[in-house]
């Protein structure tokens, strides 16, 4: 073991001595010489050492389980490793490396070369007589092949048949259930509370599914003409999806203490579109441009809420011509 160490030491000294040896005649320097800075070298060595230590610390923190706040210690260790490395390089840049100021002419355009490129192109077509015909044919072929390459993208979605955009799972007689699939009784809906309901036996993860239920006093209800009887015992149902950008209505503004002059509002927390449940879901504030679609309700013999039909209009964000479309089941 000791002999091995001695050999390593000898080899090291020999190498070091060889590097110091004045070499043969060398061409003039390209990079100018600078004064050595042994202290800066030590600083760089120290910083590199710290970087290595931090990296080892990272491995150690990673290896030991059940360290509290492991994420934080991992971040500190890795951050320090890179930070010390950065510091070492910046000290080296300032003290160990010559900072030359070089000059150079900016490049210029090459009009001659550019013209030669153009000539190669034009002269290559020297044998062509029906240039416009050929160009046209090439254009037609390229366009057709390009279209052929793009057309399969239509498989991505139903581009033309937009029937699915107006289809909802609601139809006359369908029961309203809560998120666990339990039917909702009309007696469970209390004033000043917001309930979310879904159609029974239908996928809840579609824009047409969720509705909000709120109970209002009979004298509060001013539903648009033609919606007589859409409320059941003062309970009204609206699509839960905002007609502005498709977020879910998450807030029910219904002041319980003064000032209570503001009418109740169904609010979307994305852009604060606010809809009035008393007047058929009309927009009272925010960017939405279309009323919340209302779902007609009825109460069956066992006191459960059921839909009495489909929504008053398409559910979710609006699109071109949305007001001319009717919903289907």
């Amino acid at each position, binding site marked *: 073991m000791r002999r091995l160490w001695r050999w390593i030491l000898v080899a090291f000294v020999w190498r070091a001595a060889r590097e110091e040896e004045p070499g043969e005649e060398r061409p003039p320097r390209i990079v100018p010489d600078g004064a050595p800075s042994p202290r800066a070298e030590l600083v760089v060595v120290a910083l590199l050492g710290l970087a290595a230590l931090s990296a080892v610390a990272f491995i150690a923190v990673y290896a030991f389980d059940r360290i509290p706040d492991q994420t*934080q210690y991992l971040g500190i260790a890795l951050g320090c490793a890179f930070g010390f490395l950065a510091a070492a390089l910046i000290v080296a840049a300032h003290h160990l490396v010559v900072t030359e100021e070089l000059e150079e002419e900016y490049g210029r355009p090459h009009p001659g070369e550019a013209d030669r490129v153009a000539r190669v192109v034009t002269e290559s077509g020297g044998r062509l007589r029906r240039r416009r015909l050929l160009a046209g044919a090439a254009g037609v072929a390229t366009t057709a092949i390009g279209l052929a390459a793009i057309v399969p993208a239509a498989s991505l979605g139903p*581009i033309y048949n937009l029937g699915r955009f107006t289809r909802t799972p609601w139809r006359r007689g369908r029961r309203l259930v809560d998120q666990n699939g339990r039917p909702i009784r009309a007696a469970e809906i209390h004033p000043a509370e917001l309930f979310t309901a879904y159609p029974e036996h239908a996928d809840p*993860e579609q824009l047409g599914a969720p509705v909000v239920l709120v109970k209002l006093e009979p004298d509060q209800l001013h539903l648009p003409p033609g919606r007589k009887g859409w409320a059941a015992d003062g309970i009204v149902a609206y699509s839960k999806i905002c007609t502005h*950008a498709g977020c879910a209505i998450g807030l029910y503004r219904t002041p319980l203490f003064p000032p209570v002059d503001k009418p109740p509002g169904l609010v979307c927390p994305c852009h604060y579109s606010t809809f009035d449940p008393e007047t058929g879901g009309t927009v009272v504030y925010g960017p939405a441009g279309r009323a919340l679609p209302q779902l007609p309700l009825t109460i069956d013999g066992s006191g459960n809420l059921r839909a009495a039909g489909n929504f008053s209009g398409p559910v979710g964000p609006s*699109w*071109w011509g949305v007001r001319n479309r009717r919903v289907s089941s």
Partner: protein
Amino acid sequence: MIERTTRTLDERSHTAPFGFKALRYIFPDHWSFLLGEIALYCFIVLVATGTYLALFFDPSTAQTVYHGSYAPLNGAHMTEAYRSTVRLSLDVKAGLLIRQTHHWAADVFVAAIALHLMRIVFTGAFRKPRELTYYIGLTILGLALLEGYLGYSLVDDLLSGMGLAIGYGVALSIPLVGANLAALVWGGPFPGDPAFWSRMYIAHVFLLPILIATLIALHLFLVSSLHHTQFRGGRKTEKRLVGVPSFPGQAPRSLGLMFAVFAALFLLGGLVQINPIWIWGPYHVADSTNGAQPDWYLGWLIGALRLMPSFDVVIAGRTLVPNPFWGGALLPTAVFGGLFVWPALERRFTRDRHPHNLLDRPRDAPRRTAFATAVLTFLFIVFVAGSADRAYVLMGWSYATQIDVYRVGVFVVPVVSYWLAHRICVELLRNERVEASRHAAELEAEQAAGGG
């Protein structure tokens, strides 16, 4: 030893002349030239951390029920995408560090590009002959926004679901083709076909990164082919470039900056929580939360959506332009479109068709500086409007009043800031001229005194 290596390499590639030129490539020195480099180093961190995340993330909308180490979510219905992200955050060692670093790197990446763009605009670096470099840079910024949006949408937590719903709403609002386009992208009405997740995933981890990387390479190729711009001063002229060679002078500085960026991002990732998705919970179509905010770089879009007054364009009962179009689609199109045509507009406006290697200081082009300031203040107000609900919670300021103030401010403040910026530039220039003439007069007086 080194000579042997370089000779061996050259004998097998004949690239020694190129190598020499690359080592002695000149970098002019100014702190603002480092902003683009910071973006580049963020991109490296994004690719590295993103690859690690992809080893654990499952981009699937298959429904599952959570049973795991995070008790509050036990029994919750969620998608595999969300479950695997919660798992890689809370159960995979170093997973949370890597995920948070990835998220921070994305935020810093876009910030660095945006600041870099401001530097380019305010100093006129986009002028001939560097228009192509500028267009490529703008494209990278646009792709970076999309890439970031897809990144946090993939997780399928409550916030990402709300973000996707808004994206769907904006897509639908595009006149004439909106619904067809949304159907194409989502594979049907929201929340779309399960294949939509595959589409987002391939775009986020393959198409967009490859595209961005290619454009970065092209951007850097053009930068080095045309050489850097520089500020006036010393021996620097339109024809002569002065600076530090890439080796040995610039290399340790640049690498130092790179590791400093790495350090900052990993420290942020380890110490500053970002997007704790296990708290948001899984997304369901019927769920939403108050106080939802996107990543900062989409703040201007949510602000624009909130500022628009309530109306759809409806003619004779037919819906033509639904409301989200203005803030969500038209504004970003206008901003990027404006940035793309800016060099051409300025060429026409100033009748300056010469190549420029020397940069303007912002004051040197008062009208450009004033206009850019006006655009920036406009976007800043729209951005602030996006957090009016947070200001209400923190300060108690009425949301509706704030929105009213911003609706006015968004038009008034840019005009005022245009006037102010223009004024400051002109005054600074005048001051310089006065100083220069006084200096000249003093010099003359001194000479006269010395001669007399």
